[in-house]
């Protein structure tokens, strides 16, 4: 608790909690909707956009939002079409965005510290404005889930069924994609442009190994997401290592543990069943 006397650590503490909430909840939606690849393309677009902003002398956050919006409006409708394999467009856009990011990176005059910090994140340097943006995006995701909880479940189950019931499934589908890009951009500077995808996927994938209901998956994913961020922050502070990398490392270890201890098809359960059958 003494650590929280420093204002930068206080911001990092709240930033970790907000990143954990926003990323985990959006992660549950994209993983259950089976479009996690969208997160890859969007996170790399945000990274390329931010570096482009540095090169052009424009606020990196706004440029990140612009690049995300472009990629979202290209991939969203493509992933929506049943007769088009979205992996192809994601593959092309993912490589294009990474190529652009490196191109912009090479054109930054002088030290590249700001750009590189976007790559691996620096939650210890976030300011009040960034914290506010993270809080707003996390709140938007929460409100979306709370008010449309039942309708979202139908869309995750089968979009055709949702449509036949008169549920605005396209609105829900595109809101999920837009929220995904907002959360990624808002959290990019703290977690890192290349690492944030793991914070989307790992808590959701871990929670899916442990729970059977959607509400529990959301809650457990948030607990894992926030826990990974706080533990990652603490470890990075003690060992003087990049925070984003530590957060991802912790969340990946939690995912591996959830695979082992999963009550569904976990390794331990398989061993137990094997012994029983012998």
């Amino acid at each position, binding site marked *: 608790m003494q650590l929280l006397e420093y204002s930068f650590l206080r911001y990092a503490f709240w930033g970790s909690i907000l990143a954990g909430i926003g990323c985990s909840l959006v992660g549950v939606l994209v993983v259950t909707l089976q479009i996690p690849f969208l997160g890859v393309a969007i996170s790399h677009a945000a990274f390329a956009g931010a570096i482009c902003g540095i090169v052009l002398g424009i606020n990196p956050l706004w440029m990140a939002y612009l690049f995300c919006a472009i990629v979202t409006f290209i991939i969203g409708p493509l992933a929506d079409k049943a007769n088009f394999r979205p992996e192809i467009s994601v593959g092309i856009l993912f490589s294009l965005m990474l190529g652009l990011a490196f191109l912009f990176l090479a054109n930054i005059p002088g030290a590249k510290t700001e750009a590189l910090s976007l790559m691996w994140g620096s939650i210890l340097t976030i300011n009040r404005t960034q914290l506010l943006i993270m809080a707003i995006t996390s709140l938007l995701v929460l409100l979306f889930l709370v008010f449309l909880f039942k309708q979202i*479940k139908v869309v995750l189950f089968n979009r*055709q*069924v949702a449509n036949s019931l008169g549920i605005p499934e396209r609105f829900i589908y595109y809101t999920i994609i837009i929220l995904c890009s907002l959360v990624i951009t808002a959290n990019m500077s703290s977690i890192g442009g290349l690492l944030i995808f793991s914070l989307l996927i790992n808590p959701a994938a871990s929670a899916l190994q442990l729970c059977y209901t959607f509400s529990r998956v959301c809650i457990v994913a948030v607990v894992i997401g926030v826990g990974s961020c706080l533990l990652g922050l603490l470890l990075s502070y003690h060992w003087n290592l990049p925070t984003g990398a530590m957060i991802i490392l912790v969340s990946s270890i939690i995912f591996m543990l959830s695979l082992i201890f999963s009550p569904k098809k976990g390794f331990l359960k398989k061993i137990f069943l094997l012994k029983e059958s012998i």
Partner: protein
Amino acid sequence: MNYSTSEAVIVLDSVNVEYGYHQALHQVSLCVLANSCVTIAGPNGAGKTTLLASILGLCQIRTGLVKVLGRDLRDSPKFIRKHTGYVPQNVGIDPQIPLLVWDVISFGRLAHSSLFHNFSKKDKETIEEAAELVGIRHLLNRPFGYLSAGEQRKVALARVLAQQPKLLLLDEPLANLDLPAQAMLLELIDKIKSEKELTILLVSHDLTLLPKSCNQIVLMKKGRVILSASKEVALREDVLSNLYDCPVKVVPYKQRGAIFVEGKS
């Protein structure tokens, strides 16, 4: 087309549907009377699924008129979807999907509720009644993704029953099921038909597996309705041979009969 539509639940008049350059439905006209059980059959790509989709307005209708439950689809799509239960083809649900059987059946109630509505006591009772009728009350708290294919189809039927519809659209309800599961589901469809007095429209590939209550067969080929008639008229060797473009032998057996493909040689 001049149908007497006083008792008609579905009226399609010269309906055309296109997917890009492919004409999925070509001048389709059809009349389905209230409380009937209609089977739509035909070879792959005949437009059977598109026909169901056009009744609900799930596909873009280029020209033609669709009237369901006495309402024009263009004017009342919400009303039609509210009172029509639709079970799409089984698309393979992810076993990890975090939904219980109760969740899936409860989706049917959402057709009757506004966006921010909470389930009332009556809604919960309707959900449990639907599960009871289909015989899956004991599965209500089980994860949906871990059920067998037959059980998942039962849940799909319970879901549409919870919707309390006037019309049921079932797309290939028997596909990829073993024989006992197919027989069980056919009995269930007959039971639902007799207890709920619904109009049922089902797509089937297997003309030997029809519900006993089926009183009309619609045969489709290349996006056109080539025949809409009773079982006795539709299940004739000359009609089926023409439909499938190969010699077909019909062997009468009790009420259903067996259908064999004789081969071209």
